[in-house]
């Protein structure tokens, strides 16, 4: 974990309300692993007050550059969208515990901006010659980030849009379910996206029974583990249910341990 100043190499709009930042910062670029995030200070004043967490979406240790993929949703992300090339950005990171290796083939399931950490994961897995399928769901085509610029050629991309404007017509979880029912079965699922998507995956997995890791989001203050602010209920080995920290023990958790999804999925 470093408290450091990155410099904006490039800013690019890549979809409706969605942009990427390429950030020059060697320590973060060379130490981050897929699923980790950075905590970014958006103002030297008090508005907004808290930092904002963003997943590392790509990292090039040789170049000393890492990338963020950001959806503009509120004040903080709007401010960030206004940043100019070559400006400094106060970053704390890399933070959190990322994805852990499972059994191939890997199916990555991204809902909307949830693609960010999975892109980095796909790049990393591909470098290790692991077979990867990347399921990418959005509401419509306008929200879609052109992933081919990020994904290695060996990664198979499956598109889904809820309005059918691109790829599978419907939820990305339905696309995955269709494939699994047809026998295209992963050894490991890694997912990131809206709560509803994760909940549906948890529900479907009652049938599939496939090892699954989720990258979760929770409101954060410190993002270092100091404040206990980003708690999520996790059922640990001994059957004990405890609040763990999304910023420290997470953001990636084994899906079956996340009490919230488990309880509702099985009820």
């Amino acid at each position: 974990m470093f408290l450091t100043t990155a410099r904006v190499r490039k800013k690019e709009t890549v979809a409706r309300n969605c942009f990427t930042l390429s950030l020059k910062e060697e320590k973060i670029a060379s130490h981050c692993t897929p699923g980790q995030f950075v905590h970014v200070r958006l103002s030297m004043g008090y508005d907004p007050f808290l930092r904002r967490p963003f997943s590392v979406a790509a990292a090039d240790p040789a170049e000393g550059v890492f990338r963020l993929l950001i959806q503009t949703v509120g004040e903080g992300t709007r401010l960030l969208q206004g940043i100019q090339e070559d400006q400094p950005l106060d970053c704390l990171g890399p933070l959190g515990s990322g994805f852990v290796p499972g059994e191939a083939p890997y199916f990555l399931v991204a809902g909307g901006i949830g693609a960010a950490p999975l892109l980095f994961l796909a790049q990393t897995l591909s470098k290790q010659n692991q077979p990867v399928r990347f399921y990418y769901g959005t509401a419509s085509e306008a929200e879609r980030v052109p992933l081919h610029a990020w994904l290695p050629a060996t990664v198979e991309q499956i598109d889904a849009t809820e309005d059918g404007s691109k790829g599978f017509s419907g939820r990305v979880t339905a696309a995955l379910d269709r494939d699994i029912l047809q026998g295209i079965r992963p050894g490991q699922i890694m997912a990131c996206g809206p709560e509803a998507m994760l909940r549906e995956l948890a529900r479907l997995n009652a049938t599939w029974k496939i090892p699954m890791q989720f990258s979760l989001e929770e409101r954060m203050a410190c993002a270092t583990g100091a404040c206990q602010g980003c708690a999520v209920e996790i059922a640990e080995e001994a059957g004990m249910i405890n609040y763990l920290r999304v910023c420290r023990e997470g953001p990636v958790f084994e899906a079956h341990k996340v009490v919230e999804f488990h309880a509702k999925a099985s009820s």
Partner: protein
Amino acid sequence: MQKLQVELGSLVLKNPFMAASGTFGFGEEYANIMDLQALGALVVKGLTLKPQKGNKPPRVVETPAGMLNAIGLQNPGLDSFLARELPRLNQQEIPVIVNINGAEESDFVTLARELQDVPGILALELNVSCPNVKEGGMAFGTSPAVLSSLVEKVKRVCGIPLIVKLSPNVTDIGEMARAAERSGADILSLINTIKGMVIDTHTARPLLGNLTGGLSGPAIRPVAVRMVYEVFQATGLPLIGMGGVMSLQDALEFFMAGASAVAVGAGNFVAPDTIPRLIADLQSYLERKGMNSPAVLTGLAHGSR
């Protein structure tokens, strides 16, 4: 750096800047970023006798120039603290103050008795002002009689400096300060968070799992400075001031209002290097002003007008 040393009664700190309870965990988290030995003191996360699970999430929410938190004192409990956290802190020679909490008087007394003769603990901070727990918590900090009784009992078993942390959620903080002083408090710290609420207008429900939370950050600084000023006039005890400190400028307000030391809470989240920066900035401020100790600043604002 010698000249930054301050004395709060028998509590001697190498500099007047502390990490406020609940905002620095047990120190581990920020070790990568700063030298924890440089802290005037690290006040660890509120400790209870037994482990506490804490409140239902969400537990934090941003507010204008501040934040609400409702952690609910999640902590590993006394035994785990003594077995795991304290040895590590001691090994790294980090000056530790333990923030103690309970649902009943006896919890506080037991904690104080168990902790006070453990080597490597500089002082105990009695948290009678947590707005985020149902039992105990703020209740002890809002009635002078209840506070008096508690402080007296704890003081009886406590051989190291006893800090009483005052709640801002009271009509008259001076009265609470006097109650604590009368009953044997050695030092007062203030303020804890102010009880607040954010409503999520999309769901039409309070946003925090606990419904309410404690407000901290620069938003509350004017309230905190006023209370330190009032308590300085109400008692003769040394004070630890806090509430929204981010810069030396902010810290100076607390010193001048009457604080002998200053703690940083939410500021650590925004700028994790706040405390080292404050130490360096105070050093050069004192040099520029030709002052030979931070103590010179304490209570300056009370000079005759």
